[in-house]
């Protein structure tokens, strides 16, 4: 998956989990938990949606790599 596709997937998934977040205004360095205020259940749902949409299953040990929006996009681009 190229970075553009990965970005579209991530934006769509965040839009579902946190519909109030306006991604146009979000810096990609933003942290999902602290800055976008996703709790652990939101985060799990995000990982689940990405798994459903792309088949990329992010194991727990890789969570540290997907702390930020940019990190998540990069992870998908290299694993998808």
């Amino acid at each position, binding site marked *: 998956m190229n970075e553009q*596709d990965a970005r*579209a*997937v991530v*934006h*769509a998934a965040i*839009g*579902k989990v*946190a*519909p*109030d977040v306006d991604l146009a205004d979000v810096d990609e360095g933003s942290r999902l*938990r*602290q800055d976008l*205020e996703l*709790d*652990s*259940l939101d985060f*799990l*749902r995000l*990982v*689940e949606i990405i*798994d*459903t*949409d792309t088949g990329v*299953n*992010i*194991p*727990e*040990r890789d969570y540290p790599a997907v702390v930020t929006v940019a990190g998540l996009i990069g992870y998908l681009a290299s694993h998808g």
Partner: protein
Amino acid sequence: MGDFLMPSLGADMEHGKLVEWLVKPGDYVRRGDLVAVVDTDKTVMDIESFQEGVVADLLVDIGETVPVGTPLARITQTPAETGPPPHGESGVHGAPAKPAPSPRPVARPSAPIAPPVRHLAHQLGVDAATIHGTGKGGSVTRADVEHAVAAHAGSRVRSSPLARRLAGEHGIDLAAVPGTGPQGAVTGADVHRYLGSHEDAGIQVEPVPLPRELPPEAREEPPAGPPAEARERVASLRRAIGTLMSRSKQTIPHYYLSTTVDLRAATEWMRSVNAQRPVAARLVPSALLLKAAALAAKEVPEVNGFFDDGGFRPSPAVHLGVAVALRQGGLVAPAIHDADTLPLDALMEQLRDLVSRARAGRLQRAEMADPTITVTNLGDLGVESVYGVIYPPQVAMVGFGRVMEQPWAQNGMLGVRHAVIATLSADHRVSDGLRGGRYLARIEELMQKPEEL
């Protein structure tokens, strides 16, 4: 017969606005069937019938705001209780004469039908009199009823609001989803399962990119609210929380305790379990903590129940309220029923369902009305500890902070472990620090054997 009243959906509720009728005159409802959707200051809730019968009249129009206790609908007794009539339309005994709102055949002769089949038709929500019988002598068989249900499927599938929303989002027909809820109702979990299984079968579920989901205020059922209405809702929720919390602080003599819970065993166990699971079945630490909080509440009854005019009434069941922060501001604390008896996976599933419905503003009456103790898990968003304010008439509030690594001394050795600060705010009219301390100590002990939770 009896009236279906605007219920009180929490200590602070004085009125409610009828948002949607889930039944229409002539429908057969059983105890527990969802009847209407009511908007309180806090959330939009599905409310259920406390009686069995036929809906004779809807007394309140959609959009009306009425005080608690106002009759919303008239429900009359049905032949199911008095024995079915030998023939014909399921006559509505004792129903007041009413103009049928839609052309509905009332007295036309209909096919013979055996009581069990009629009952099935009632249960599935189809009018037995309208079914074409293919059995002996033109009688209606079970298969006929099932066919009729299938034919009506699009509009007649019993389903939860979450299920309907998910189905809408994914463009699937609810009739195709096997329901596991009450009377075969399709739940959100059923839809997730359905989506999962069809993805396995290679069917593209949802292409990206997706349209952004609308905020709850602007979703389908209630008339799309202008931003002013959304702001008013947040302000109204703020007032409701303020009123309730003021009452709590004015009437409940709180005391506060805290302890640090060693999570080494729990995090290691959870990591190994999750590594073998698909994303949808993974656990989060909150689920383990909630289960421990519920089990401990069962063992220390002084923190589980209600304090009202009659003094303290301990609750035999543990209905664990979970404080859910709403993304647009404010919070609600609906209950996971009998949380102490639920297997961990079931509790996890209910937690996810409850939180997503709370965020979507769609909770059920019972969930809002009867938590016996509440847990707040604010730590998820970063703080080390949280001391909650008790929700009256409850007598305790449990708080969990952030799961963090910290230096841990044991047996003269220093190591690094995951840990969480658990707090208890409890009512001094009911318990004191010794019992409260016992409660937190039990949580600590239970968390050391996560595989037994």
